[in-house]
């Protein structure tokens, strides 16, 4: 059943992405309900998978890198469904779906490890881990908004905008959305650190260094953008760049957590 749930969610994201490519190819893209619906179904199937894993492990299902990536994809889809309509960010689903699909495919390709039943952990430790990944999900969505900014800015600079230009939101809105989503992610990450401290999690060495590094990277970018010290383009590049760094460090942090 777990495999079915995982495949179902992958197919939903694949349909969402495929539909986008088809519409863009036909130069007739209109942001519709299809992306939203397929993303919602994909997220529901991921949720189903994670709940089965959680029940089997008696813990938040973050035991393997594969589960971590699925949890991250689920967080991104969840935040998109919450944020997209609020900001009226049309096409955000079209940009989010391929990223979630990529995470899902990597998760599927990773070797599946046998289920490990955990002894009861502190609820604060579970909160720490879950909040961290939801924060990463927000960073991912911020990177998507940043990417949309770069595409729209490129269209505006080209002086010959392609049809997608008409459907992408204004760069000012995208910049605002990126800022607010990243702030939300940063606050969640800070809360995650606080819950780890409260749970007396002993963190040192590499994990502490990389975690603080990610936190600092976002803090610098957010303060710079908030105070108007960096241009919209640099902020969007930083949002995308920081997420790539965070994504690359995620397996390292997870590996160090298990030690």
């Amino acid at each position, binding site marked *: 059943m777990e495999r079915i749930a995982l495949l179902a969610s992958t197919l939903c994201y694949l349909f969402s992405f495929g539909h986008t490519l088809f519409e863009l190819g036909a130069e007739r893209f209109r942001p519709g309900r299809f992306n939203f619906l397929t993303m919602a179904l994909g997220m529901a199937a991921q949720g189903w998978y994670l709940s089965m894993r959680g029940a089997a492990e008696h813990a938040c299902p973050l035991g393997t890198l594969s589960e971590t990536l699925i949890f991250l994809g689920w967080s991104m889809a969840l935040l998109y469904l919450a944020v997209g309509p609020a900001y009226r960010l049309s096409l955000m689903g079209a940009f989010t779906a391929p990223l979630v699909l990529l995470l899902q495919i990597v998760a599927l390709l990773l070797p599946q490890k046998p289920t490990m039943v955990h002894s009861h952990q502190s609820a604060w430790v579970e909160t720490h881990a879950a909040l961290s990944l939801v924060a990463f999900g927000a960073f991912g969505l911020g990177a998507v908004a940043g990417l949309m900014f770069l595409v729209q800015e490129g269209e505006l600079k080209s*002086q010959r905008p392609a049809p997608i230009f008409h459907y992408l939101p204004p760069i000012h809105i995208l910049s605002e959305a990126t800022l607010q989503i990243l702030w939300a992610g940063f606050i969640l990450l800070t809360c995650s650190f606080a819950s780890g401290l409260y749970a007396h999690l002993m963190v040192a060495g590499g994990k502490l260094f990389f975690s603080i590094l990610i936190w600092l990277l976002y803090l610098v970018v957010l303060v710079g953008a908030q105070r108007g010290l960096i241009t919209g383009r640099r902020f969007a590049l930083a949002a995308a760049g920081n997420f790539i760094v965070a994504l690359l460090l995620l397996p390292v942090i997870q590996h160090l957590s298990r030690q």
Partner: protein
Amino acid sequence: MNILCAGINHRTAHLDVRERFAVRESEMAEVLGRLRSIDGVSGVVMLSTCNRVELYASSLCPLRALEGFRDILSERTGLEAPLYHLVNPEAVRHLFRVASGLDSMVIGETEILGQVKRAYSVAAEAGAATRSLHRLFQHAFRVAKSVRTETQITSGPTSVGSVAVELAGKIFGSLEGRRAMILGAGEISERTARSLQSRGVRSLIVSNRTYERAALLAAEIGGMALHFDHWEKACADVDILISSTNAPHAILTPEKILPLLRLRRGVPLFVIDLAVPRDADPAINQLDGVFLYDIDSLEQIASQSLDIRRQEVIRCESLIEEHVGGFLSWLKSVPGGGRAASSIS
């Protein structure tokens, strides 16, 4: 009952002629009353815009209705009206095309739908519309909505002013409270500024080498005049810069714009260069946060939008055809509605 459409439009008559036949809204009730008094005419709706003067009538005898309409127009203007006329399927199709913007000078423009709605509402209030005309116009509004939502006939801006407004919207989102500056008091920059004003730009600064001209334009558009020597200082606070001076060389260079950008704290600057020769060095478009459009690029976007709209016309026509069939089926089902139209030649 037959549906007759008769009138003149931008294709059949020049503006000089159309303006003579135009009927003001204050005169409409009286004209509708006279039209209804034509023998055999049961209901009328009259559409009078800058591009067309058209009568839609439900009549047992379209020939008599047409002649009566011609007489009334001639009496009002002293001119022979060069009327075209359409009956039943053609008249219904024509109204659906008009309401959908397919018969407009700029294909797909949406202002006409509001004008058709207003014409219908005036006729309905005057008690001049019959059941078949009520049904016809309600159907036309549905058709127009369907054409707009199911096709790309309204896609993209089609004039320099509307392109500038759309681009500004794609940069700043809402234009409410944004500030604009006009350099050089030319006609196109005035029109562009007015388009931006219509979307919420409130603060407008006009700067021209001849201060009096700047003051005149500023007074006309409700802006503020500024001596040309001071425009660079004021530029740091504006979001949209419309330039159309007669300068023989570029006055907006990276050297001038770069220091302004530092003061803007990341807020973008939209430069609309309408001058020939150009006022802006194309290199400023490479600066972070600056978006430069010259007259060629603006006109090219407008032309692209029109191309898209022209390609959509076939889809629109096919949608309209389905609705014409639907309306005519209803008309035939109404007692007396299936009668053939009198021949008009």
